[in-house]
């Protein structure tokens, strides 16, 4: 009787499979195969008709969609329709949604012509067939982007030669570690150097924290919290003074330590990293770090604004500096921990793509290209309509809010700077303008890591399982270690390293090194 039931159930399931198979397969096919075919046909036809193509573009936000979204969309179309015959429809998605919904949408054939991958690894999407290769489209319709790509590392190419995405042109290209000290505590910190470009060692930071703590005993100077730490966002880069390059594929596949190295190592196993952990633990024991740092729900910004901590850990560059001045107050001092340097940005955290569910890929590419070439369009999408959402000031390229409008009540406020050629983007503070950025980039270009020169991409498609396991280990141990919140550092550290090894990090690094060496040789780059 049981066997009969099971057999029946299996039969029913298989029958069901066929049913839905027909349904969803044709839907999927319509979006992929037929869609592309239809598009090519109609493009040929409509190029002659001059008919307007309609595209759907993802618009990622975190704080909601303002009331004037439609007005801005209309203004956008006033530019795009006459220039390239494309009508844009924005698909607002919160950053949280993009993490979960993209796969589902693609799997079900949901139409998106332009898809932004933000804070996600685009290579995975490419590896599972979600993205269209863009080489031909770029040659035909993306001439501006192509030109920019020769100067700036904005395109992302897979190991098989397919171009699958591109990033905006940043206002600056460099990395510089920094610990910003809030204005209120600057007076207490006597050891601050007069030279604004002084590079502080960890011992010098210790001295400064000591001084702040003596003057303000209830404050915790070093503002690190566990809830912000994950394998892509590590305090070590901002605090330790270590220069390392994760080569665009993340710390889980090894890094290059220092400007000149071509040897890929496990960052966490190096002596330098261990010494950094030791110092952080000393800070914790000395009371410079919040005791609850690992488990607190409060963000580091909350703690800073509530007067619990005294610093912010982030990179130094003119844009971020302007932000921190706005958030932390004038008089905030950036304590730089590294020199400016240039690292590999191969697979960036901001990638524009055309997914396989696109129905008008040509129109999508045309739109992309226009955003890069037309600064007015780019600024329109970024900041909204002049006069309504911002007004120009006397400084070139600097804008401000109109009377009575601010970030909380503006009808259009775009928080993610991900569009086009950002060197021409309007800024809110002269400190963040074009000149300081160019100077900054120039200084960094004198210190390029070997990976930065090479534009190399590690092919991870065969290692997703191991990388997932390694990430788990990282996310398990790093918050406590980087907050100094461990009772026995050596014990936990050794556990951490051996867990990484059993997750296979040495194999991955060896593989990465082999590919990297081959790439360097093939491209004639000296080791």
């Amino acid at each position, binding site marked *: 009787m049981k066997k009969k039931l099971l057999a029946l159930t299996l039969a029913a399931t298989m029958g069901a499979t066929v049913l839905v198979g027909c349904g969803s397969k044709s839907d999927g096919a319509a979006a992929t195969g037929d869609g592309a075919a239809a598009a090519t046909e109609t493009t040929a036809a409509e190029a002659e008709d001059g008919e307007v193509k309609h595209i759907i573009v993802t618009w990622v936000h975190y704080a909601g969609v303002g009331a004037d979204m439609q007005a801005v969309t209309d203004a956008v179309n006033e530019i795009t329709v006459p220039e390239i015959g494309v009508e844009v429809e924005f698909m607002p998605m919160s950053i949280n949604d993009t993490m979960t919904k993209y796969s589902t949408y693609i799997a079900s054939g949901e139409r998106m012509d332009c898809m932004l991958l933000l804070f996600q690894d685009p290579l995975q999407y490419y590896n599972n067939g979600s993205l269209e290769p863009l080489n031909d489209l770029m040659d035909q319709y993306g001439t501006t982007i192509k030109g920019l790509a020769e100067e700036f590392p904005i395109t992302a190419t897979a190991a098989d030669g397919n171009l699958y995405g591109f990033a905006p042109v940043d206002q600056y290209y460099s990395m510089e570690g920094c610990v910003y000290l809030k204005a209120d505590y600057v007076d207490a910190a006597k050891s601050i150097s007069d030279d604004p470009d002084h590079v502080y060692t960890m011992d010098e930071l210790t001295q400064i924290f000591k001084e702040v703590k003596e003057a303000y005993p209830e404050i915790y100077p070093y503002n690190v919290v566990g809830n912000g730490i994950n394998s892509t966002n590590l305090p070590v880069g901002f605090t330790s003074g270590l220069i390392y390059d994760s080569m665009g594929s993340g710390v889980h596949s090894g890094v290059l330590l220092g400007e000149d190295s071509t040897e890929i190592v496990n960052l966490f196993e190096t002596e330098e990293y261990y010494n950094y952990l030791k110092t952080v633990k000393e800070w914790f024991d000395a009371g410079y770090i919040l005791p609850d740092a690992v488990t607190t729900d409060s963000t580091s910004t909350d703690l800073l604004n509530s007067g619990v901590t005294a610093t912010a850990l982030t990179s130094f560059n003119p844009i971020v500096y302007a932000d921190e001045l706005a958030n932390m107050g004038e008089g905030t001092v950036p304590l730089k921990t590294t020199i400016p340097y240039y690292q590999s940005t191969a697979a960036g*955290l901001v990638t524009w793509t055309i997914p396989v569910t696109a129905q008008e890929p040509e129109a999508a590419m045309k739109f992309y290209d226009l955003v890069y070439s037309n600064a007015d369009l780019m600024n329109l999408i970024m900041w909204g309509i002049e006069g309504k959402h911002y007004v120009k000031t006397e400084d070139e390229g600097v804008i401000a809010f109109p009377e009575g409008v601010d970030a909380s009540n503006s009808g259009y406020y775009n928080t993610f700077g991900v569009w086009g050629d950002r060197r021409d983007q309007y800024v809110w503070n002269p400190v963040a303008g074009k000149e300081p950025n160019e100077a900054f980039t120039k200084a960094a270009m004198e210190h390029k890591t070997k990976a930065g020169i090479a534009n190399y991409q590690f092919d991870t498609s065969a290692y997703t399982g191991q990388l997932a396991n390694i990430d788990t280990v990282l996310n398990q141990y790093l918050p406590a270690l980087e907050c100094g919140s461990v009772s026995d550092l050596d014990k936990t550290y050794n556990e951490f390293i051996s867990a990484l090894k059993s997750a296979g990090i040495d194999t991955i690094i060896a593989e990465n090194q082999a590919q990297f060496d081959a790439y360097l040789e093939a491209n004639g780059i000296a080791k």
Partner: protein
Amino acid sequence: MNGIRSGEEKMYEFFSHIIMIILSLLAFLPFWLLIAASFTEEHTAVREGYKFFPSQFSTAAYGYIFQQWAQIGRAYGVTLLVTALGTVGSVLVIMMASYALTQKDVPGIRLVSFLIIFTMLFNGGIVPTYLVFNNLLHVKNTLFGLLLPGLFCSAFNIVLVRSYISSNIPSALIEAAEIDGAGQFRIFSQVIMPLSKPIIATIGLLNGVAYWNDWTNGLYYINDAKLYSIQQLLNEINNNIQYLSSNANSISGIYTSNIPSNTVRMAIAVVAILPILCLYPFFQKYFSKGITLGAVKG
């Protein structure tokens, strides 16, 4: 109970009170803490933690949420509608199916039982379910998208109700009705339903809370802001705050404003629970004593 109650009965009642009082306190105190936390000033909360009596009172968290009061009002409406429709509909369907399964003399019933229970054991996953509901049934951005996927009828409920009917409604009653010539529908509506009030209330509560607290259906099937449920809305606010904190360093151009994030989360929780708390007393009466099976006699 008739007659004088014995000392023993009084002692049992006394200890029962003790147990219930302790449990009630344990249940209520954290809730009070939640409310107190939502009315605390943000920076004080970060510095000192939550207290039962806020050292600094503030309604800023509620102010932040109710900036979008129009949207919140509509989200409440949507959620209420979905919960009401969903609960009534699902209870009806479940009661019918459960009663049907108790009729063991109907051919094939055991197989149907197995098939229904099997659904609790194997799950195709999010993506295939989405494919069925979206591509096949086109429920996207409709009320059905909030009502149907996952929540409308669960095998767990059916098993519970079937068990209740089997043990609490004597088959003699049903047989008597059949002999009197009543059809199955009449038996269902006039015998089964009136005698099942406790279990109806139980699964009504279970499903009602499930509908009220659900946000995953909205996440996948609803893009139109007019159809957001309250949980989906509040979850958005919460998750977006989280994302920003872990990634603010990775990209320039993020302009963080002063969101009172900790106390806002508490206020969000209170806002989400209140309506259910107000409605629960109406369900109460079905759980009280005095519902007897008087009809069983004879």
